[in-house]
C-alpha cells in the first residue's frame, strides 16, 4: 500500500478529504450513468416483437418487400385475391401443414355502453386460430351479421352490439366470446370488408419439422413472398409498431448520446475548475518532486475514484429505473404497447465502463493543465487571471462563428431533412465559437450590464463590476454552461414550435370551410360520419406501382375539387372521375404523365388501369383518385377529417364518434393532437439537458465562489456586513447568468431565423418565428436560482467562518 501508484492513492486521498470539490463531477457522472444505463437498457430491449395474435403460426408467409429508405414505413403491396387463393392451395399442400390461414384485418370498433372501445381491429374468424384464441362461450360467427367479441367486453352470446365499420355503424349479433382481443367476423363478411391479404399463417400438425415446412414453403411460393419461422417471424411485426419503434429508437439514441456527451462536458468543466482552484497544491507537488506525469496521474486517479463510485451507483439506479422508462415510452407513444424492458447484465457492465471512460475523458484536459503547473505556482498568490487570450483561440472562435452564420444562411435555402441537420450544425458551430470568444465578448457586455450598478451608492455594484471584469476568464467560463442551457432550450423549443407553426400555416391556408368534423374516440371517420351535415372529405389510401412501390393517394370527389379552386398546370379537373386521376408534378415525372394509362395496384390487391387526367401543383397529396373507386378497393379506409362548407348542423347524430369544431379552432386542435408527442419529447429533452447543464452551472459557481473565499474574508474585514458580502456574490452570479443568456440567445436566434426562412421557402407561405417564452423564462429562472443558490451557499461558509473567528 505504501509503494507505487502515487497517482491513484493521492487522488483517492484528495477525493476523501475534499469530497465537496468532487460533488459536481460526481453528480454529473451519476446522472449521466443513470440516463445512459436506463436509455441503453430500453434501447436494447426495443427489438421487433411478434404480435400475440400470430404467435400460434409456426411459419409465416408475407408479401415480398420493396427496398425502402430508412424511416420510410409505406406499406407493401398486398397479393391479388386470385394470388391469395393460389398460394393458400399451394401452401396447404405442403406435408405437415394443417391449414394455411390468410390474415384478413379490417376496421371494426364495437360500441359498448355508447362509447367506442379502444381496440378497433377486426379480423376474419379463421385468423383467430393463428394466435390461437379460442371460443369461451357461444359459437363462432358463421354468417354476415354475426360477431365474436373479446370476453373482457362483457357481452353475452345472443345480444346485439353496434359495431362501427368504414361504412358507418352496423348492428351485429354476438355469436360468441373469445379469450383474446379483437373483433371477429365470419370469413365471408370479413373478405368483403377487409383490404388485401399480406400474410398467410401456416398451422402445423403436432410434431412437424418446422425447418422442412419452411423450406418447402419457400419452394412453393418462389418470388411471390417471403417465409419466416422461429424467431425470424418478428419480421411480421405490424408496420405501425415498426414505425413507433423507429421513432422511439431515434428518441432513445438522441437521449443516450445527449446524456453521454453532456456528461463528458459537465465532468470536464467540473474537473477543469477543480484544477484551476488547486493550482497552488499542484505547484507544491511539483516542487517536492512530482513529475508532470505524476500530477496528471493524480488527476486521473481522482477521476477514476469518482468515476467508479458514480458510475456504479448510477448504472444500478438506471437499471432499476429502466422499466419505468419503458412504461413511460409506451405511454408517450415511443414504443408499441407490449414493449417490456429486459435488464441485461452485460449491458449494465458496458454502461459502468462507459461511465468510467466518461470520467477519464472529462479529466483529460484538466489533467494536462494540471501537469503544466510550474512548481513556482506553489508560492504565488492565487493569481487573478491576466493571461491574454491566445491568438489561435481568437481565430478558431471567429472562424466557428462565421461558419455558424454561414450555416444559418444555408439553412434558409435548405429543405426537408437537411433543414434540421443544417440547423443543428449552425447551432453547434455558434456554441463552440461563442464559448471560445466568451472572454473577448464578456468585458463589453459586463460593462454595459453593470453600468447602472457602478452609479449606485453602495459598494456592492462596484465590487461586482470590477471583480467580474478582473477575472474575465472566470466570468466567461462560468457563463459557458448557462450559454449551453439557454441556447439549447431556446433552440430546441423554438425549432419545434416554429416547425409546428409552419404546418399550421400550411394547413390553415387549405381550409375554406366553416367547420370541421373530427373523429372522437374512434380510429377515423366512417362514410356515415364523414357525410354529416353535407361535409366532404378525402379518403387516404395507398396505390402500388407495378414494381410494388407504394404511392400515397387520396380519394376525392370532383365537385369538391372544382369548388376548392385548384388550378391544373396540365389537363382539366373536369375529366376527374371514373378511372381518371389527378397527380402532382413529381408523380407525373415518374411515368404517370398527362393522358397516360397506367396499371395501378389497390389496397385489395386488384390492379386497375387509371388514366392521368390532370397535373396540379398544389395538390394536398401525391395522387387524387375518385372517392368511390377508393371505397370499392379499400373497404376499410377511413377519413381523417371532413369539412362542412356551409353552416354546421345544430345537432350531431350520436354514436358516430364525431365532434365538430369551428374552422378557426381546427388548426389549433389538430396541431394540439399532432404535436403533443413531439412537444412532450421536446420538453423532456430540454428538462434532461437543463438538469444536466444545471449541474455544471452549480459546480462552476460553487467552485468559483470557493476560490473567492479569501476575497470575501478581506471584504468582511474591511467592514462589509455578512449580508453585503453575500449580496455581492449573488449579484455576481446573476451577472454571469445574464451574460450566458445573452450568448445563448445569440446562438439560438440566428439558427432559428435561418430555419424559419427555410421553412417559409419550402411552404411558400410566411412562417412566424415562435418562441415558447414561458418555457424559456422557466429555464432562465432555473439557471438564476441555481447559480445564485450555489454561489451564496458556498460563500456563506467563508463568510460564516470569518464571523466565528472574529467572535472569539
Amino acid at each position: 500500500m505504501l509503494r507505487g501508484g502515487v497517482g491513484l492513492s493521492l487522488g483517492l486521498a484528495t477525493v476523501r478529504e475534499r469530497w465537496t470539490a468532487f460533488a459536481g463531477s460526481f453528480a454529473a457522472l451519476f446522472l449521466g450513468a443513470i440516463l445512459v444505463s436506463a436509455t441503453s437498457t430500453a434501447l436494447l430491449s426495443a427489438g421487433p416483437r411478434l404480435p400475440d395474435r400470430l404467435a400460434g403460426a409456426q411459419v409465416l408467409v408475407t408479401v415480398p418487400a420493396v427496398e425502402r429508405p430508412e424511416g420510410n414505413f409505406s406499406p407493401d403491396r398486398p397479393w391479388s385475391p386470385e394470388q391469395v387463393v393460389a398460394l393458400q392451395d399451394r401452401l396447404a399442400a405442403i406435408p405437415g401443414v394443417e391449414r394455411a390461414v390468410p390474415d384478413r384485418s379490417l376496421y371494426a370498433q364495437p360500441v359498448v355502453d355508447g362509447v367506442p372501445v379502444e381496440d378497433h381491429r377486426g379480423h376474419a374468424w379463421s385468423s383467430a386460430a393463428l394466435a390461437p384464441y379460442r371460443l369461451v362461450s357461444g359459437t363462432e360467427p358463421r354468417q354476415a351479421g354475426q360477431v365474436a367479441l373479446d370476453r373482457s367486453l362483457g357481452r353475452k352470446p345472443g345480444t346485439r352490439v353496434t359495431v362501427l365499420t368504414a361504412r358507418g355503424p352496423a348492428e351485429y349479433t354476438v355469436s360468441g366470446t373469445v379469450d383474446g382481443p379483437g373483433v371477429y367476423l365470419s370469413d365471408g363478411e370479413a373478405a368483403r370488408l377487409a383490404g388485401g391479404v399480406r400474410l398467410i399463417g401456416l398451422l402445423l400438425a403436432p410434431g412437424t419439422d418446422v425447418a422442412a415446412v419452411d423450406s418447402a414453403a419457400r419452394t412453393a411460393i418462389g418470388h411471390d413472398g417471403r417465409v419466416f419461422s422461429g424467431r425470424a417471424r418478428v419480421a411480421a411485426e405490424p408496420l405501425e409498431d415498426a414505425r413507433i419503434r423507429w421513432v422511439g429508437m431515434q428518441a432513445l439514441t438522441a437521449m443516450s448520446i445527449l446524456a453521454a456527451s453532456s456528461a463528458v462536458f459537465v465532468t470536464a468543466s467540473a474537473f477543469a475548475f477543480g484544477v484551476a482552484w488547486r493550482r497552488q497544491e499542484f505547484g507544491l507537488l511539483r516542487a517536492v518532486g512530482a513529475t508532470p506525469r505524476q500530477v496528471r496521474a493524480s488527476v486521473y486517479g481522482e477521476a477514476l475514484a469518482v468515476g467508479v463510485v458514480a458510475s456504479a451507483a448510477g448504472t444500478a439506479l438506471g437499471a432499476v429505473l429502466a422499466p419505468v422508462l419503458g412504461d413511460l415510452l409506451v405511454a408517450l407513444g415511443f414504443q408499441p404497447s407490449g414493449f417490456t424492458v429486459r435488464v441485461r447484465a452485460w449491458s449494465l457492465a458496458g454502461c459502468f465502463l462507459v461511465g468510467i471512460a466518461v470520467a477519464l475523458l472529462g479529466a483529460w484536459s484538466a489533467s494536462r493543465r494540471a501537469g503544466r503547473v510550474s512548481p513556482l505556482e506553489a508560492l504565488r498568490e492565487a493569481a487573478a487571471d491576466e493571461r491574454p487570450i491566445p491568438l489561435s483561440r481568437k481565430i478558431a472562435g471567429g472562424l466557428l462563428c462565421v461558419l455558424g452564420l454561414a450555416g444559418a444562411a444555408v439553412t434558409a435555402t435548405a429543405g426537408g431533412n437537411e433543414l434540421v441537420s443544417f440547423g443543428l450544425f449552425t447551432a453547434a458551430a455558434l456554441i463552440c465559437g461563442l464559448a471560445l470568444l466568451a472572454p473577448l465578448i464578456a468585458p463589453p457586455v459586463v460593462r454595459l450590464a453593470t453600468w447602472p450598478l457602478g452609479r449606485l451608492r453602495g459598494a456592492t455594484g462596484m465590487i461586482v463590476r470590477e471583480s467580474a471584469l478582473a477575472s474575465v476568464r472566470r466570468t466567461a467560463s462560468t457563463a459557458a454552461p448557462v450559454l449551453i442551457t439557454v441556447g439549447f432550450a431556446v433552440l430546441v423549443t423554438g425549432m419545434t414550435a416554429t416547425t409546428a407553426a409552419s404546418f399550421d400555416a400550411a394547413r390553415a391556408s387549405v381550409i375554406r370551410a366553416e367547420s370541421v368534423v373530427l373523429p372522437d374516440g374512434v380510429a377515423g371517420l366512417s362514410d356515415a360520419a364523414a357525410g354529416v351535415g353535407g361535409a366532404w372529405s378525402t379518403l387516404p389510401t395507398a396505390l402500388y406501382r407495378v414494381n410494388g412501390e407504394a404511392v400515397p393517394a387520396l380519394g376525392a370527389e370532383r365537385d369538391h375539387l372544382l369548388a376548392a379552386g385548384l388550378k391544373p398546370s396540365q389537363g382539366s379537373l373536369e375529366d376527374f372521375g371514373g378511372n381518371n386521376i389527378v397527380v402532382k408534378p413529381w408523380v407525373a415525372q415518374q411515368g404517370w404523365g398527362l393522358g397516360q394509362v397506367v396499371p395501378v395496384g389497390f389496397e385489395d390487391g386488384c390492379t386497375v388501369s387509371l388514366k392521368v387526367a390532370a397535373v396540379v401543383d398544389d395538390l394536398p397529396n401525391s395522387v387524387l383518385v375518385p372517392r368511390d373507386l377508393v371505397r370499392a378497393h379499400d373497404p376499410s379506409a377511413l377519413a381523417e377529417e371532413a369539412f362542412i362548407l356551409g353552416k354546421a348542423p345544430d345537432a350531431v347524430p350520436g354514436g358516430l364518434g364525431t365532434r365538430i369544431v369551428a374552422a378557426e379552432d381546427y388548426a389549433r386542435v389538430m396541431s394540439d393532437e399532432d404535436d403533443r408527442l413531439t412537444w412532450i419529447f421536446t420538453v423532456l429533452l430540454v428538462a434532461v439537458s437543463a438538469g444536466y447543464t444545471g449541474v455544471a452551472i452549480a459546480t462552476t459557481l460553487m467552485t468559483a465562489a470557493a476560490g473567492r473565499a479569501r476575497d470575501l474574508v478581506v471584504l468582511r474585514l474591511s467592514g462589509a456586513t455578512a449580508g453585503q458580502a453575500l449580496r455581492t456574490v449573488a449579484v455576481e452570479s446573476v451577472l454571469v447568468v445574464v451574460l450566458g443568456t445573452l450568448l445563448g440567445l445569440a446562438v439560438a436566434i440566428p439558427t432559428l431565423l435561418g430555419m424559419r426562412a427555410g421553412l417559409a421557402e419550402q411552404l411558400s407561405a410566411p412562417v412566424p418565428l415562435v418562441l415558447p417564452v414561458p418555457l424559456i423564462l422557466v429555464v432562465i429562472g432555473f439557471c438564476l436560482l441555481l447559480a445564485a443558490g450555489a454561489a451564496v451557499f458556498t460563500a456563506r461558509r467563508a463568510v460564516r467562518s470569518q464571523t466565528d473567528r472574529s467572535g472569539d
Partner: protein
Amino acid sequence: MCSGESGTWLEGMESKQSVELWSVRRTYRAAAREMRALDGVTTGFEAGTFTAVMGPSGSGKSTLLHCAAGLDRPTEGKVVIDGTDLGTLDETGLTLLRRERVGFVFQAFNLVSALTAEQNVFLPLRLAGKPVAPEEIRTALAEVGLADRGGHRPSRLSGGEQQRVAIARALITRPAVLFADEPTGALDTKTSRHVLRLLRDLVDRRRQTVIMVTHDPVAASYADRVLFLADGRIVDELVGRAGAEEVSARMTSLEARAC
C-alpha cells in the same frame, strides 16, 4: 561592484561545492519593460555549511533561491547542484533531481492539505516509488519534535508545526541541499528559535547544506555565512558566524546606500 568579495571562495576550491551559480541572470518581462530580478550572480555554497541570504524587499532573494534550487530556470548563466548542470536537464530530469538532491521549506503553504502530516512527510519517497519504512517516518517526525502528530492533517496543526513537518519532509530524501525561504517569517520568536536551532543542528550533526532567505538578523546569526543582495546583485558577504547586531549593522548600511 562587490564581485571581488564574492569571488573569494573561488580560490579555495578544494572543499566540495553543493551548489554553484555562474553569472546567473533572471529577467521578467513586465509591461514591455525588462525587469532584472537577478543581475549576474556568481557564488557557491559549500557542502555542510549554513548560508543566510539577506537583502531589501524586491532585491531578488527568492528569485536566487528558486534558480539555485531548480524551481525556476535562469534567463542566462549556469546552475550546478551536486555536480549536475541544471541547464542540461529537461523538465522531468529537473524534477527527479529536485526530488533526490534538494529539499525545500517555503514561508507558507508547505503541505498538501488532503494528506496527514505523516503522508506529507513521505510524499517525496512515494513520488520516487521508494519503499517507505514506517519507523523512518516516525524518526523524521520525532526529529522535528512531532512524533505524536503524524496522523493529523495540516488544518489541525499550528503554523510552526506545519513548518516543522515541512522540514521533516524536506529532509526525508537526505537531500544534498536544503533551501528555506523565510521559514520563520510567520512564526513567533519562540517557535522560530526552535526551527532555527533545528536547522543549525542538522548542519552540525549531519553536515547538511542549508541555504536560507531571511529578513531577520537573529535568524541570520545562526548561519556560517551571510550573503547580502541588492538590485539582483551580491553586494556584501559576512563569513563566519556573526552576531545579530553585526548583521543588523550591515543591513542598515546597505539600505542607507540604496537610498
